[in-house]
């Protein structure tokens, strides 16, 4: 079974540009999450999709970030315009189980974003 995949693995852009990150969850997983780790600090939650619906987007830092999951399969996270403080590693995770008590989130390799 393929794991969570993310593309690209690395991205270097200039401040003010736009970047789109993609996440393909494990097949059949309805739950999809985005997290990020900035400047070697804690990994922080960004948002949670259940199928194509946003269940919780309380961690989205501002309106420069837009996440979509059309069709309930893969998800994209767009940063427009990118700022220096957006640099970090963006992780995607997915899970299958509906009951929170049994859920384990499986993470992808992450996308390293560097904004210059």
């Amino acid at each position, binding site marked *: 079974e393929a794991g969570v995949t993310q593309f690209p693995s690395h991205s270097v852009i200039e401040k003010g540009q736009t970047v789109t990150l993609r996440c393909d969850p494990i097949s059949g997983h309805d739950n999809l999450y985005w997290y990020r780790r900035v400047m070697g600090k804690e990994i922080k939650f960004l948002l*949670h999709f259940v199928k194509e619906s946003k269940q919780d987007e309380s961690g989205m830092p501002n309106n420069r970030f837009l996440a979509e999951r059309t069709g309930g399969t893969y998800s994209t996270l767009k940063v427009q315009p990118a700022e220096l403080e957006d640099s970090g590693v963006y992780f995607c995770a997915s899970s299958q189980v509906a009951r929170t008590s049994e859920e384990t989130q499986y993470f992808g390799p992450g996308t390293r974003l560097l904004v210059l």
Partner: protein
Amino acid sequence: AQSVAQPEDQVNVAEGNPLTVKCTYSVSGNPYLFWYVQYPNRGLQFLLKYITGDNLVKGSYGFEAEFNKSQTSFHLKKPSALVSDSALYFCAVRARAAGNKLTFGGGTRVLVKP
């Protein structure tokens, strides 16, 4: 609000010696607790979790963790460390009444020397 503390940025241990990575948490109500490991240039890999029941949880690669409610701790342990255990370890908590999002600690780098 929930939080996780990993008080050690780095842990150094000789191969064959016991390994302990510390984690304490703060959460309202009963927690779900997790350990993940990140090897170089890899994603986060799930090691183990505590949901309920036995306080000692066994996971992948010979790791185990002990849930201590009175001390609000969930330390990760391995009786005999391997060089290949060198990696970045993250503790995470999810509050039972706070949805699905995980709250992570800052991570602890483990270096196992031959």
